[in-house]
């Protein structure tokens, strides 16, 4: 599973992230990237992708573009990261300027905003599906399950601020993973080669 993917071309990297950027409404970008990068193209493993999501979410910037940089960097270094970022922004940049020119007409269209809420709801559905798929792969024992539920409850239900929550949860979760990895440390190291 943990194999460095064969060299992904910058062009295909650009194409994937251009498409994700252009068709992303209502914040459904990270699951879309997940689908393209992990499910369809198998450029990286699920763990690798998800840990990147957690890592980049605690850093400033937009989650989706941060994730794009993470993926691009993993696959092709600086060139890959720049390509992914540029590709993510090309479509929205043009779309937002076009919309700004026509916005009075656009917002005046009856039902336009209602339709956009539906699009956003579908994007959230994508997010839910990615959560379920990822949880099935990631949560193999009780401790990660508890960590996942606690994080969800803290941020989602009790609406605690994301950064402090991650700063508390991450060390605990990583410490547990460290101890769990102890007996099969050799196997893990082998896997990585």
């Amino acid at each position, binding site marked *: 599973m943990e194999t460095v993917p064969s060299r992904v071309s910058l062009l295909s990297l650009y194409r994937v992230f251009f498409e994700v*950027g252009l*068709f992303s409404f209502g914040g459904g970008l990270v699951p879309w990237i997940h*689908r393209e990068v992990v499910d369809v193209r198998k450029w990286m493993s*699920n*763990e*690798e992708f*998800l*840990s990147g999501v*957690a*890592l980049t979410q605690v*850093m*400033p*910037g*937009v989650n989706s573009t941060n994730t794009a*940089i*993470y993926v691009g*960097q*993993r696959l092709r270094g600086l060139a890959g*990261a720049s390509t992914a970022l540029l590709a993510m*922004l090309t479509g*929205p*940049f043009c*779309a937002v*300027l076009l919309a700004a020119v026509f916005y009075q007409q656009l*917002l005046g269209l009856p*039902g336009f*905003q*209602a*339709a*956009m*809420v*539906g*699009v*956003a*709801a*579908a994007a959230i559905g*994508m*997010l*839910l*599906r990615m*959560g379920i798929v*990822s949880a099935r792969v*990631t949560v193999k024992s009780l401790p990660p399950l508890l*960590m*996942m539920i606690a*994080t*969800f409850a*803290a*941020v*989602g239900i009790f609406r605690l601020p994301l950064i402090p929550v991650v700063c508390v949860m*991450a060390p605990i*979760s*990583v410490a547990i*993973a*460290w101890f*769990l*990895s102890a007996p099969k*440390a050799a196997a893990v*190291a082998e896997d*990585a080669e």
Partner: protein
Amino acid sequence: MNFDILLKIIIIMAPLSLAALGGATSIYAPMQHHTVDVEQWVTAREFLDLFAIARVTPGPGSMLGTLIGWKVAGLAGAIVASLALYLPSSALVFGVGQVWHKHRGKRWHTALENGLAPIGCGLLFAGVLTLGRIAAEGVVQIAIIPAVAALMMFWPKLHPFFFLLGAGLICYSVYLAGF
């Protein structure tokens, strides 16, 4: 003179880039303060309109900054504002990523990866709930969320665009039906 404005855009947007913890939502307030109250580049009403445009077009909500740059200094303003909003945070993510990717395969790295993955998972579900609250205008909109998730499980190969399009059409029909 134009360069002064471009420089000003950079001075305002670049720090916001690094302040955008947890996404664009955290910088709407300071962006409004700087561009509406202090610089008076746009009126409060225009700011809201631009916000709405950024919401209904594809891409991150921080495209709002791009629109303000465009409003103030045309295409050059839009490009400068975008770069100022994205480059600083992106450089930081890249720098941390360098360290991260370099140590791949070490035991502590594997522990970090396995430890962070369930947290990333929990954050995903939290995102579903947070965003769901915003989109939850009615039964139909709420029902779309699990429906799309289930349909995507059954047809993982189908392009997500069709789900977005379908959901948009359904809600448009609901609007036309007058619910």
